[in-house]
């Protein structure tokens, strides 16, 4: 069993619902967005268009963050999910410089949201929860909502199909641009999608990380 996600960028409408669903589900610290969406323009008038690139941890087969981490806080489960243990993290930030995708986030204890480069809002409601759930000076990251996957498997649900067992960003996406499932199971939604749409691409292929998050469209 190897969990993976394929993102059909051609379907993405740039609503950022995935970003918010992730923030809500994981109560990530201020400024830490595990599933942001990059917006960019390409082409020239009259053929210019907006494009969206949702990004998140790639849960790499050969994860450079795990190799860089001196404390063993970053581990890879048998099902391929890369997790950060905040109880073990020493805050060396080696993972942050080693990850080509910028998927690791240091909780500095800052509160409020970045309003401009020089100003933040007052502390938000989610700041309080972030302080309860995360440790200052440690690194956190996307878990593919492993808590939902584990809960689902315990209750006989299928991750990628049943919402209770599927990552929040996948469940919330109105355009269904995120497809999640078992890469080892030929009948899983993700395997069938990739078979139908052709080979998926990974970000930063030069980094040779064996990413489990890939892109089509």
């Amino acid at each position, binding site marked *: 069993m190897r969990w993976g996600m394929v993102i059909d960028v051609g379907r993405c409408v740039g609503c950022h619902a995935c970003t918010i669903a992730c923030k809500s589900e994981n109560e990530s610290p201020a*400024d*830490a967005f595990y599933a*942001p*969406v*990059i*917006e*960019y*323009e*390409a*082409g*020239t008038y009259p053929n*210019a268009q907006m494009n969206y*690139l949702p*990004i998140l941890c790639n849960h790499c087969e050969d994860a*450079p963050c*795990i*190799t*860089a*981490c*001196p*404390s*063993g*806080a970053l581990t890879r489960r048998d099902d391929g999910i890369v997790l950060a243990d905040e109880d*073990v*993290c*020493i*805050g*060396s*930030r*080696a993972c*942050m*410089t*080693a*990850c*080509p995708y*910028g998927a690791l986030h*240091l909780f*500095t204890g*800052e509160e*409020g949201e*970045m*309003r*401009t*480069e*020089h*100003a*933040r*809002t*007052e502390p938000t409601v989610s700041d309080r929860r972030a302080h309860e759930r995360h*440790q*200052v*000076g*440690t*690194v956190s990251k996307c878990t593919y909502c492993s808590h939902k996957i584990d809960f689902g498997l315990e209750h006989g649900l299928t991750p990628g199909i049943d919402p209770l067992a599927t990552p929040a960003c996948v469940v919330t996406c109105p355009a269904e641009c995120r497809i999640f499932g078992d890469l080892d199971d030929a009948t899983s939604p993700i395997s069938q999608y990739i078979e139908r749409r052709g080979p998926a691409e990974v*970000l*930063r292929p*030069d*980094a*040779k*990380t064996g990413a489990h998050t890939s892109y089509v469209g």
Partner: protein
Amino acid sequence: MSVETVPTRPVGHVPENVFMDRWVLEPKTQRVWGAPHATWFTLMGVGGGLFILARALDRDADLGHWLGIPLVDWISFVAIAVGGLILIGDLGRPWRAWRAFVNVRRSVISWGAWADLIFLTAGALLVLPDLRIGSARPFESLPWDSNATSASGRTLEIVAMIAALGVMIYAGIVLARPRAIPYWHSPSIPLQFLLSSAATAMAVLLVMEFANDVAIEASELWITAAFLVALLALVVGHLLTRSDTPGKKESRDRLLRGQYRLPFLGGVVILGTVVPLALTVVALAVTDARDALAVVLLVLLLPAGFALRLLTLRVGIFPPLKEVPGIFRP
């Protein structure tokens, strides 16, 4: 209708998330490591280099003692210990620093943590028999001396020297190993750090010789010159190779044409390498000028070594996640 303004307060510092400024497909500069890392890289490099070179050149016993222990050894111990404390102080959770020893199977930082510990332990054990407090030598009965004349002393010295080499080089390997930042992903980086440390350590040795009325020998100047030539070749070679790689191109541009042009070309390359090399050649020819030139060498090499490391960190740039032809860049 009145519009409620959101109360704001100044940012304490820039958040340490490479994607925070703007989520755009642009090369992004790493901001997680900076001056504290450059400081401990420098201190550990010079400390390790000093220990190795003083013993390899058999100079440790000639350059003064404090509490019975060679001054050169004190300097290298203190430099590495202070570097280690800066490293620990910069951690997000400093009191968990012991966990840095855990991931030896994979992490270069763990190798480095062990190298630091082994160096400080083996080095301290090596010099312990010579420790003099007043007229007493409490560890005199240990079966070796700090000059490593016995087999056990020699073993400790070799262990300490190998660990010191590890201390000198591991910071560079930490940067060079991952592929995320192309400018760092090269064997040139650890070698640059190693040679810069070695050249600076030689300058420290030369100044200590001057301070202790020990003649500076031509062979020591030749060694310093060799380190500087190799360093210059590595820096230039690194800038010339794979220079169009996304990420590395931006790093190179920043060093050669952008905001770091003056500190890099003026500080690291000219004042920190070319001028010291020229001074070393002058010192080879003019024996009387060696003492004064040794001081100038140290004054130039130490800040240049720090600048080399700091600028290497500052131009650590992640290339765009995806190459998009025809992307609009305002």
